[in-house]
């Protein structure tokens, strides 16, 4: 199943277009990094708020509102540019253990982001332990996606 999807992606017009253009893959990777910077920067600062380390004079939900829009923009940018890179060289990614680990962490991170994370950053009365756990898990998952994404180039 995964093999046939990878073959289909690499042979698709989009995959072929990106692969055969001089700078297509490189430009997609630049936009992926822009998206990750927005996403990880927002997750990092919001997690610091959940730990009670910054912007403590403002409620969690207020800070969450400020960060939500741009963090989501980063996620969307990453979720458009990432698959573009994948489509161009899907068969190479298919053979990369780092890619599969990244995809597993990414899937967990997205489910976590739109469930526990969104719930906690909207609530002003969540227990401190739950906030700290949510912040730590967010950092672990999203920075884990970043580290594994970088590892694809090596493994």
């Amino acid at each position, binding site marked *: 199943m995964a093999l046939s999807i990878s073959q289909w992606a690499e042979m698709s017009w989009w995959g072929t277009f990106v692969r055969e253009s001089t700078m297509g893959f490189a430009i997609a990777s630049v936009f992926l990094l822009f998206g990750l910077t927005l996403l990880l*920067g927002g997750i990092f*600062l919001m997690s610091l708020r959940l730990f009670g380390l910054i912007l403590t004079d403002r409620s969690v939900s207020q800070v969450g509102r400020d960060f939500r829009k*741009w963090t989501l923009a980063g996620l969307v940018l990453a979720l458009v540019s990432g698959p573009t890179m994948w489509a161009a060289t899907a068969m190479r990614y298919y053979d990369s253990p780092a890619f599969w680990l990244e995809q597993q962490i990414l899937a967990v991170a997205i489910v976590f982001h739109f469930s526990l994370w969104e719930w906690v950053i909207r609530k002003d009365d969540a227990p401190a332990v739950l906030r700290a756990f949510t912040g730590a898990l967010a950092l672990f998952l999203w920075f884990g996606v970043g580290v594994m994404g970088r590892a694809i180039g090596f493994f």
Partner: protein
Amino acid sequence: MTILEVCQLIENSQIGTSIRESNNYWMLNGAHVLSLAMSVGAIFWFDLRAMGVNMRHVRVSEVYRQISGWMYGGFVTMFITGVLLFWAHAATSYMNIYFRIKFLAMGLAVLNAMYFNVKTARGIAAWDANPVPPPGVRIAGIFSIVMWAGVIAAGRLMAYTF
């Protein structure tokens, strides 16, 4: 001795070779990218406030005070990992056009931040709480975002032109 020859000496040194050939080289690379995301990500949020786009109800000085320590922490990590990466590929990097663009953009971003701290921020009391700061402050914010985006783009393109 030319700069290129110095870079070749650095790249061919024992430390340069051992970094390049280390099994943990990818971790160094990953740490550099993540610390960049952390520090530039934090700068981005401050720039958005300076532009009057985000966190409008928080004083500009307060946003800076709260996140600057973490921003500089990320910078130190980015700088250390960047120096180690350069050590491993000093001559190759020196000859690379994107490395030079990256350095130029970084230099301009730092100059912009210094100008902001020395000149623009001098009259901060007058506009600190304004939801939308004066044009000079907003321009500094936009310039900062553009320069750091340039650093990211050039840094990424370097890898494809080695």
